[in-house]
């Protein structure tokens, strides 16, 4: 008798689950759908995420861009910048494919990107032919990011120098190929 009631109870649960499955599926945030069939299964999840989710783009696009455009780079982050955090360092190693991430302290302060670029840098910033230039929205302690690389002379052992600029109260992270940085810009690598 008792086992009959138990089996009946479980049958009700199964029926209830089956009836509710589709309504639950159609009223969710698509990110939380139980059944998400992907067209191209061979794609990496990062690639899928960047294509489908603005949230993922905000969190990871800067690091993924470094990984795609300048893998194996040494990345120098200004120690006092809000984005010089373990979270960013972690992503730069994970998705940015960085060879090394170090903290630096600039000997002077800079307010704009123009101030720190040399002539080649300004040309790269103006033309995508000579500079591989990527930008995007950020989330972890910076609102926007800019990646500026000397496309014509890029090697696998580039050095990217990080700059932090504040525009209209929002922090911009700029990662600039060292060859495009003015020789007057000096820094010390932190111990």
């Amino acid at each position: 008798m008792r086992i009959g009631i138990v089996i009946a109870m479980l049958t009700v649960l199964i029926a209830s689950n089956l009836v509710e499955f589709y309504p639950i599926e159609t009223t969710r945030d698509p990110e939380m759908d139980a059944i998400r069939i992907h067209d191209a299964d061979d794609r990496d999840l990062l690639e899928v995420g960047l294509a489908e989710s603005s949230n993922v783009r905000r969190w990871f696009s800067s690091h993924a861009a470094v990984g795609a455009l300048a893998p194996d780079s040494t990345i120098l982050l200004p120690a006092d910048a809000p984005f010089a955090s373990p979270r960013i360092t972690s992503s730069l190693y994970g998705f940015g494919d960085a060879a090394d991430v170090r903290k630096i302290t600039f000997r002077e302060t800079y307010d704009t990107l123009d101030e720190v670029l040399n002539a080649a840098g300004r040309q790269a910033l103006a033309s995508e032919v000579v500079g591989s230039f990527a930008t995007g929205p950020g989330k972890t302690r910076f609102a926007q990011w800019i990646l500026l690389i000397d496309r014509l002379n890029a090697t696998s052992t580039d050095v990217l120098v990080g700059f932090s600029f504040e525009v209209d109260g929002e922090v911009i992270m700029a990662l600039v190929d060292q060859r495009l940085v003015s020789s007057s810009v000096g820094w010390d690598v932190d111990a």
Partner: protein
Amino acid sequence: MLMLEWLLVLCWILIGFVIARYVGVRGNLLAIVALPVGVSVTLAFALVQFVLPLPSWPLLALLGAIVVALLLLTLDVYRRTMSREWRSLLLASLVASVAVAIQLWLPLRNWSTDSLYYLEFSTQLATDNFSNGYLGEIEKRLLAVPVLHGFAIQLGVGDHLRTIGGLFALCILFLVWWLLRSRLRGSYRTAADVAGVAAALSLVTFNRFIFHTFYINSHLFVALIMLMIAGLLWARIVGFELGSSPDGLAIVATLVVPALVVSRAEGGLLALIIGIGFLTQASGRAPLVYMATAGASIAVWNFGMVLAAMSTDVEPSRSALLMLALGVATIPASVVILRMPAAWRSFLPFVFEASLWAFLLAMVIRDDEILLKSAQATFVNLAGFEGGWGVTGLIFVGLCVLAIAGYRCREDLILRLAVTTFVPLSFLLAYLREGAYRVGDGDSLNRMWMHLLPIALVFVVQRFALNRLRVPTYLSQKVTNSA
């Protein structure tokens, strides 16, 4: 390329088969636990790897597990104790192969931003680029999921394993069926099997169960390991035939404990909660070995965290220090508890549960906002159906409450503890993470229900099937008077 993923799965099954068979597991149970045991032993090696100055490659952890399996296999052959358990290996391999093929053919994959954080660590582990600069994040994410998906990166089959979630889900379903069928078999014959199958079907039809099956996160794996530990120890305590010697059940449950510790931040606490039930109801060396393994795993992981912080001039987190102390204290505390008279020990679960509620109360007195917001959000997620569990979720909560309050039963203490401590522990975690739970199916607590669901289902079904409903005295008097 994806052939490599299939071979990796078979390798885990073979490792788990050799180890579990060696300690006395047989038949269907052996087929069910082979994969999780293989994966868990690999994760135990990854834990050691994390603390020692070794490369962080996941394949190195697998190599450690293979060496252990080969040693045990050699001993088995030498002692000529190799018995006819190859049917279990064949069964597990066949089912897994079909499941892998289906999942590769039907590309289902669920992910959120959290999934990418796990994969970020997978990349670092696979490229041996794992540095100590990200303690806060790794303390939150832990090691299990990054190591598992790190295999995909190291084997060159993408940035994540595509089939492992479905395989873990199958293990949960088969284990739910096997536990219930074995427990109820003494009282009911065919109906025991029907109840077991119905329970597994009620689980797999939950929309959220399907979500977690394909979701790249740790929830489903935690659910599997918790069910394994609690289910096998429950069988050992009650003494029903599950397909293993009593020692075999305890050893397998103990072997997978390190995997639980490195799966979730609260994994160590979950292992200890189940361990308290085991300590209370079992004697001999087995509960001590279990608690020592749990304590050592917690201590090793948190020692690694503290060491990494100190080596980079970062102050170790308070939770790492507290958990390190807890891990170290677990071993002597277990010895003391085991030497207590049995009558004293029987109070231990109640003292422990009361302590959890007292801690929660203390937190609420300090700051009631987190609890109020969390309770409100949880209510909306369950009763307002925002969490995706539907009406069934609400019915199931009602059944759990009835099973807890309506029956008096001591032999399933280990299952009951896992269920009843979930509420205070979850809300305490909200204080530890310094943020209230929120409305929506992506909320942490809403996802953590998955950890509990399989155990709660087994708990409810066996209580209803084997025990008489306890009618309150005043009601039974009314019935008598009216008669």
